[in-house]
């Protein structure tokens, strides 16, 4: 109790002995820091009528000549304006982070850390809290509650964003592209939610920094970072359909090194929406994920990290096949594995330069066998093996606080082997991208990007994008971006060598069309060649041009409204078309760049904190997606429909409902409430999906008949959760509480109830 505070004595002494001259020098010597006291090395101090002064590496700045007013600003922080007296009064000038929320930092939009508020393009960030509120176990269950996003069911749970299918949305894991698509769909159920720190949703084409696939947008999944301390968390979640999800997070950390292990296992019995038929809608499956993240500081200039992830999924089920001897039962067994290895080395010679060398190596394979139950003979066997490697060097140079230039260089190798493709196939690609983040004036942010891709199959391609933001008022900023996107044809479109024996048709990838047709010709199977196969084969990338524009508005400090309107013009979409008629009357098909599609819409999100413990948010998305060729044929009077009385008439534009599987209207309403006495957090969500075209029924292949729509529906979801003082987390809840199901949505099992617990073991011990 009698300890003397030396600091106080020092202070006292200095006060006693200081002269006034000495004091004035000290008072002009300031430090610019963030709320946690860390220096902001890129801050700028501008005195009225004088030149701007840059702070040093430690955030220190010395002002020689007094001035009436002093402005302090730094990228990512709220600017401050001080009088000379105020300047003198503070020793440390604290700048608030611009968004006010620390974790609303976005990496994927510019490949550098930026706060959402600074980004001139539409970005949504889902933090741990929002992820937890959904009660989701697989990634699709988190994303399906977000405005403007639909989860479609086509060879897996795919994301649809801005009316574009999963094929055109790039999925990143900690910033690195994930591979492994089936029929174009990236199955979001492959990703376990348990150790996701946050998810960034970037809308609109981003090929200017990411190249192929980032045509409609990017989803970046950021896993929990390794911490500089030890932790051991055990969790278990249980839900309907006998689903179990135990998981474990284990972290150790020292001063310079830390590592994090994550293990997750998911098992479910699946569900069946059509009990009258043999086989389940979703077969029982098991999925295991293992992840290891090691990060280390080699020196104050070098950082290194290694991220490894393995995934294995097995499922089994039965199917009924119509054979010659009546129907037969088939036993199905499917395996899916993927493995990623992602080392990163970061060199930061000084505050202005960051050089990052990354590698990403991925293996993805699937194996599907179906056997006759009676004879145990193999009915079908499909294998698919994909390998992807990328090396990338990125250099970020902060020329001054208002200019950040990034330059990236990369090289890619991709190989694929599959039952339906001949031999082993390899693609090589390289790319270079440059990006300039520029704040020309205080209220203006401009991001310009340009990427060139060089592909051994498709030649080269340039993708530009420019985005700008103008903060019109303190609480209102307007954004606009124009960009180009592309997607290179996938393996199937190039390499498929497929014969549907049951229906008797053939499908050849563009690379194999000529060869396939000549083979069929030799066998005498061709009746007529419709398109000379020599002219096939130059399959080009699918391309898009898009404009996104909208605003972020804070009507009051406790409310905000975000709006984005977009228009995507997509050309060269790849479709199959017959290339030859066979003697059997069937056709042989190949792939062509034939379709043009437009998707446009508006998405709005509004949120308000009504009370300290009650907040409300609402989202609405309007989508208009149509095929331009269909419109042209309608205008030419070439498309007809028949009514129930078998009278034929021409389809009009008013009949045309656009692309299938798109809801014109969708939205959500979310209420978050914390019950004060118990401390229980309640998250209630109503997720609405408007009616959408399901399938053509009247034979003209377009959506133009009321009967071709699946009805709209609302999913009412509720999650209750509580985190105890000792860190133990409990949750319970349900999704789709009204148990609404429709065969048009095979990924919706109906009502799901869940409970879960997470125990921080080390917390409890200590």
């Amino acid at each position, binding site marked *: 109790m009698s300890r003397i505070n030396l600091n106080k004595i020092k202070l006292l002494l200095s006060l006693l002995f200081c002269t006034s001259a000495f004091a004035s020098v000290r008072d002009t010597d300031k430090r610019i820091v963030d709320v946690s006291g860390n220096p902001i090395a890129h801050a700028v101090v501008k005195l009225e009528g004088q030149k701007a002064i840059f702070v040093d590496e430690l955030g220190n700045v010395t002002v020689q000549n007094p001035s009436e007013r002093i402005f302090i600003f730094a990228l990512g922080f709220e600017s401050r304006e001080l009088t000379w007296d105020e300047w003198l009064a503070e020793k440390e000038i604290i700048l608030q982070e611009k968004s006010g929320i620390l974790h609303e930092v976005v990496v994927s939009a510019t490949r550098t850390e930026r706060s959402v508020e600074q980004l001139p393009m539409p970005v949504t960030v889902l933090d741990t809290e929002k992820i937890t509120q959904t009660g989701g176990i697989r990634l699709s269950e988190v994303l399906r509650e977000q405005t403007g996003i639909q989860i479609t069911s086509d060879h897996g749970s795919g994301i649809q964003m801005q009316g574009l299918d999963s094929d055109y949305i790039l999925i990143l894991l900690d910033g690195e592209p994930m591979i492994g698509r089936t029929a174009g769909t990236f199955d979001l159920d492959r990703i376990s939610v348990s150790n996701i720190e946050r998810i960034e949703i970037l809308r609109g084409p981003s090929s200017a920094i990411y190249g192929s696939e980032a045509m409609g947008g990017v989803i970046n999944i950021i896993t929990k970072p390794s911490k500089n301390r030890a932790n051991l968390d055990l969790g278990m979640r249980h839900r309907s359909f006998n689903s179990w999800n135990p998981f474990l997070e284990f972290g150790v950390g020292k001063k310079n090194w830390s590592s994090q292990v994550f293990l997750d296992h998911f098992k479910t019995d699946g569900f069946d929406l059509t009990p009258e038929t043999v086989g389940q809608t979703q077969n029982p499956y098991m999925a295991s994920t293992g992840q290891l993240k090691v990060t280390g500081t080699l020196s104050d200039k070098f950082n290194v990290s290694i991220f490894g992830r393995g995934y294995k999924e097995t499922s089994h089920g039965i199917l009924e096949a119509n054979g010659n001897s009546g129907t037969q039962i088939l036993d199905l067994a499917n395996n899916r594995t993927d493995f990623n290895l992602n080392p990163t080395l970061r060199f930061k010679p000084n505050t202005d330069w960051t050089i990052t060398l990354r590698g990403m190596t991925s293996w993805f394979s699937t194996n599907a066998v179906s056997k006759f139950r009676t004879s145990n003979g193999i009915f079908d066997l499909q294998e698919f093996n994909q390998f992807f490697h990328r090396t990338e060097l990125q250099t970020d140079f902060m020329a001054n606080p208002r200019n950040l230039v990034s330059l990236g260089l990369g090289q890619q190798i991709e190989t694929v082997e599959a039952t339906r493709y001949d031999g082993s196939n390899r693609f090589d690609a390289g790319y270079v991208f440059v990006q300039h983040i520029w704040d020309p004036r205080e209220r203006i942010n401009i991001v310009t990007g340009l990427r060139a891709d060089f592909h051994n199959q498709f030649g080269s391609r340039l993708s530009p994008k420019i985005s700008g933001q103008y903060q019109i008022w303190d609480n209102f900023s307007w954004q606009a971006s124009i960009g180009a996107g592309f997607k290179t044809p996938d393996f199937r479109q190039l390499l498929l060598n497929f014969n549907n024996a*049951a229906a008797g048709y053939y499908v050849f990838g563009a690379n194999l069309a000529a060869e396939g047709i000549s083979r069929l010709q030799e066998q005498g199977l061709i*009746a007529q060649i419709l398109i000379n196969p020599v002219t096939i084969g130059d399959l080009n990338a699918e391309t898009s041009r898009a404009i996104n524009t909208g605003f972020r508005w804070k009507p009051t400090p406790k409310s905000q409204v975000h709006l984005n309107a977009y228009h995507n013009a997509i050309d060269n979409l790849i479709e199959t078309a017959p290339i030859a008629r066979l003697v059997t009357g069937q056709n042989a098909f190949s792939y062509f760049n034939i379709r043009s599609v437009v998707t446009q819409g508006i998405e709005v999100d509004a949120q308000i904190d009504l009370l300290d413990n009650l907040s409300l948010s609402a989202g609405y998305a309007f989508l208009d997606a149509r095929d331009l060729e269909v419109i042209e044929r309608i205008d030419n009077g070439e498309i007809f429909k028949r009514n129930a009385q078998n009278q034929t008439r021409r389809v009009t534009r008013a009949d045309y409902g656009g692309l299938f599987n798109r809801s014109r209207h969708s939205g959500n309403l979310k209420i978050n409430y914390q019950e004060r006495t118990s401390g229980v957090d309640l998250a209630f969500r109503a997720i609405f999906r408007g009616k959408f075209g399901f399938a053509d029924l009247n034979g003209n292949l377009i959506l133009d008949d009321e009967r071709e729509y699946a009805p709209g529906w609302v999913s009412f979801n509720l999650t209750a959760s509580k985190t105890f003082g000792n860190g133990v987390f409990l949750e319970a809840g349900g999704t789709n509480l009204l148990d609404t199901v429709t065969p048009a949505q095979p990924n919706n099992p109906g009502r799901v109830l869940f409970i879960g617990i997470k125990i921080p073991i080390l917390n409890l011990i200590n």
Partner: protein
Amino acid sequence: MKTIQKFAFILGAATVLFSCDNADNNSPDLPLEAILVEDLAAPNDLIDRNTNQVLEVRPFQYFSLEKNELVAENEDWDLAFKGTTIRVNNTKNVNASIVTGIFEEIKEVPASATFATDTETSFAIPTGSGTGWYNYNSATFTVTPIPGRVILVKTTKGNYVKMEILSYYKGNPPLEQIDPRTTPSAHYTFRYILQPNGSTKF
């Protein structure tokens, strides 16, 4: 053939009663009768889906548009049906052409229509989804006649016929009631108008 319905307008029927010789009249005054043929059953061969082998060959169903009835193969048939395949009688010089338009609006064989007969390697009415008279929807496994496809046939007697296929399923059920697993297929319902005077007008 179970039922053959005739749609004749009362006016048309009346005109028939008072009809005069129209041989010297190029444009027919008679509104022609639309004939509806229901549930012409023409099952396809039994094919092993796994091996693509034909296990049981089934016969074509030979139909005379002139007589509006099924006939034997050696008689004057115009069209022959089996599964989704429709043949024309190339030994009797039957020709066909597919045009796009509304059945009622086609008052005359268009000059642009290209008639062909079946050959060794091709069908006058092409088979395959989207190329001939039907679309096959691989999502719903349903065969649907393409609305607006009208088949023009020059019969064994050299008369022109316009024909529209309405359904491939038994009982011509409404679209939403078709379940490809349970609704019997290869049952043609179609309607046609035959111009008996050899002119190209209907």
